[in-house]
């Protein structure tokens, strides 16, 4: 695309080239519309993939860009899911404000926990995120008068979007809604990644020792991105609540935290679309394999993960971009 000699003469245009929408991206969003016409019976799956992809992006912002490895992000997904469910039980079923409410709630908790998160690193960081995730899960289980406990929250009633679009059995509304929110999420995440702030996050990931030596208050940066990421995860959780009208403890589970990291690494970290691709491949593979072999499908998923790592150590997108030649 851009060559070195051009850039050397004009740093501005080189940087603009870095953040420009690529053909790959545009093609991706066009393809994302195809299920409406070609796979209408897969729309509910597509909707849940879009939701998972949004969740993966929220994790990519902290893990891929800021280098915070988390095994507890389902905490925010689940908090958003419960917030969105509980607000409908309180009598307000409007979905868009519900999303905002859930995002804000998850962001608040994200901000509070970020004070702990930015003070530890490495294994301790991973384990503290895991511990906080489990604590949230146990808390939700203990507060069954509010959350419905292990049976899940009952009586979630979401109004039609704009008072018009009902969530139908085929999933037309669900997928449209999830896809639009995912798109907005990607636009927002892109904007963050390609800002000065995004650059500082990459700095943190690349070399934490250097950051204070260039005068960076990097802990504030990390707290900020952790909060933003929590908000995004909360929105994803809220989407799941609204499109399925269910909430369960499973949204907070370690399994969900681990799965999302697996999908992200599978697709490739630090690339935004890596999480999306990972979510698509993982969930489509799971759907197809478990359809063929409901009892042992995860054997094949396991093999897939191992094979990908041996062949493409930077995830699928990393591998593809290396194949396609050098681009950063």
């Amino acid at each position, binding site marked *: 695309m851009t060559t070195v000699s051009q850039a050397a003469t004009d740093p501005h245009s080189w940087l603009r080239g870095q953040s420009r929408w690529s053909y790959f991206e545009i093609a991706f969003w066009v393809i994302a519309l195809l299920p409406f*016409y*070609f*796979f*209408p*019976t*897969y729309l*509910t*799956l597509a909707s*849940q993939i879009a939701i998972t992809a949004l969740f993966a992006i929220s994790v990519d912002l902290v893990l891929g860009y800021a280098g915070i490895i988390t095994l507890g992000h389902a905490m925010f997904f689940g908090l958003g899911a419960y917030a969105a469910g509980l607000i409908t039980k309180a009598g307000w079923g409007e979905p868009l404000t519900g999303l905002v409410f859930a995002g804000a709630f998850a962001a608040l908790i994200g901000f509070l926990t970020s004070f702990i998160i930015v003070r530890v690193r490495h294994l301790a960081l991973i384990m503290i995120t895991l511990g906080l995730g489990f604590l949230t899960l*146990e808390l939700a*289980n*203990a507060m*069954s008068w509010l959350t*419905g*406990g*292990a*049976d*899940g929250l*009952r009586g979630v009633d979401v109004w039609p979007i704009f008072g018009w679009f009902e969530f139908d*059995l*085929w*999933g037309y509304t669900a997928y449209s809604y999830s896809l639009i929110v995912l798109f907005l999420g990607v636009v927002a995440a892109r904007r963050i990644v390609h800002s000065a702030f995004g650059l500082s996050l990459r700095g943190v990931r690349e070399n934490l020792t250097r950051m204070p030596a260039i005068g960076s208050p990097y802990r504030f940066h990390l707290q900020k991105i952790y909060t933003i990421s929590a908000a995004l995860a909360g929105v994803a959780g809220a989407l*799941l609540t609204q499109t*399925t*009208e*269910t*909430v*369960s*403890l*499973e*949204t907070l*589970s370690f*399994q969900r935290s681990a799965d999302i990291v697996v999908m992200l690494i599978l697709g490739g970290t630090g690339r935004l679309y890596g999480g999306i691709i990972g979510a698509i491949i993982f969930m489509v593979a799971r759907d*197809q394999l*478990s*359809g063929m072999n*409901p*009892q*042992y*499908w*995860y054997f094949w998923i396991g093999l897939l993960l191992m094979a990908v790592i041996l062949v493409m150590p930077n995830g699928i997108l990393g591998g593809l971009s290396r194949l396609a030649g050098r681009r950063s």
Partner: protein
Amino acid sequence: MVKKIVVALAMGFGLAGGANAQETVKIGVIVPYSGPFADAGNQLDAGIELYIQQHGDEVAGKKIEIIRKDTGGPSPDVAKRLAQELVVRDGVDILAGFALTPEALGAADVATQAEKLMVVMNAATSVVTEMSPYIVRTSVTIPQVNYPFGKWAYESGVTQAYTLVADYGPGHDAEQSFARGFTEAGGEIIGADNTPVANPDFSAYVQRVRGADPEAVYIFIPGGAQPAAIGKALAERGLTPPDTKIFGQGELTHPEALESMGENALGIITTFHYTLERDDPLNNEFVEAYREANDGRSPDLFSIGGYDGMHLIYEALKETEGDTSGDALVEAAKGMSWDSPRGPMSIDPETRDVVQTVYIREVQEVDGVLQNVIIDEIPNVKDPLHGADE
């Protein structure tokens, strides 16, 4: 994959699957085939499989086709999506399975919207059948076996008890039902503890029970590894019958748990709707056929739920003469009664919930093998919560 795309295309263009529905009845089975609850799903599936094997795959001139879907665990969102896909993609006529309550709650709306019969073959929270008029349950509810058990416990001469239940929905339900039955009859609950759902070691809780020194302890924990663990912990602390009576729901003394607990299990009294060892020709035949089909593995509550669920589907189809509309099938199911390997059972026409005999069993040694021996039966028990304002 290609085939699926073709099917998807065909359906997308409105050639939806009514055409061949005249020949086959498709039943979508939604259970956790994988994950921590995989055993429940697989046992339930084996029950379904055995019924089809014994009764053929043709009913009312139609072929029965099972489509299996894995939820991976108690995820209502996944269960709902699978139900939606089964309806719109696979064109199923009946939804079935549902080992876990969240699965059933997730799919209930789909049954209502799509007007399909939904046979709940396990999920044991009372409220499940109230979530859709198309739901029929062939398993059990927790209050159904524990409320009468509470009464029975008092009548058996126990005046005070301690409850120890897993800290989640079913555990709380069990605790409440038992305590209600027990206290209504005149007993007193002198202490109650909740154990974490995935608790590996019970010694601390058992030690607490011991400190309270009750006449009896009532226990509810999920099946799997925990029954044996708690049984051993009780024995280690000397909490054994007859000094301290041990009450529980049937999972506590499932065959693997008995094998692992050994004689420590002797004297434990449990309440259940299905007893493996119940000496009855129907049951003996069922158990034998089940073991033969499953490498010697014994049937459990999931197996019988699936087995009877299939019975209900077959009989309903016979009655509707192959009409698979949800309304017709639900009508046919209401009031249906039959002799199951578990004993006589029926479907309450009001609540569409199961009505059956509750068995009180005690672990005894018979011919050198530990068994749950039925010591009392309470016939025709309905779920005590339906109709009662929660």
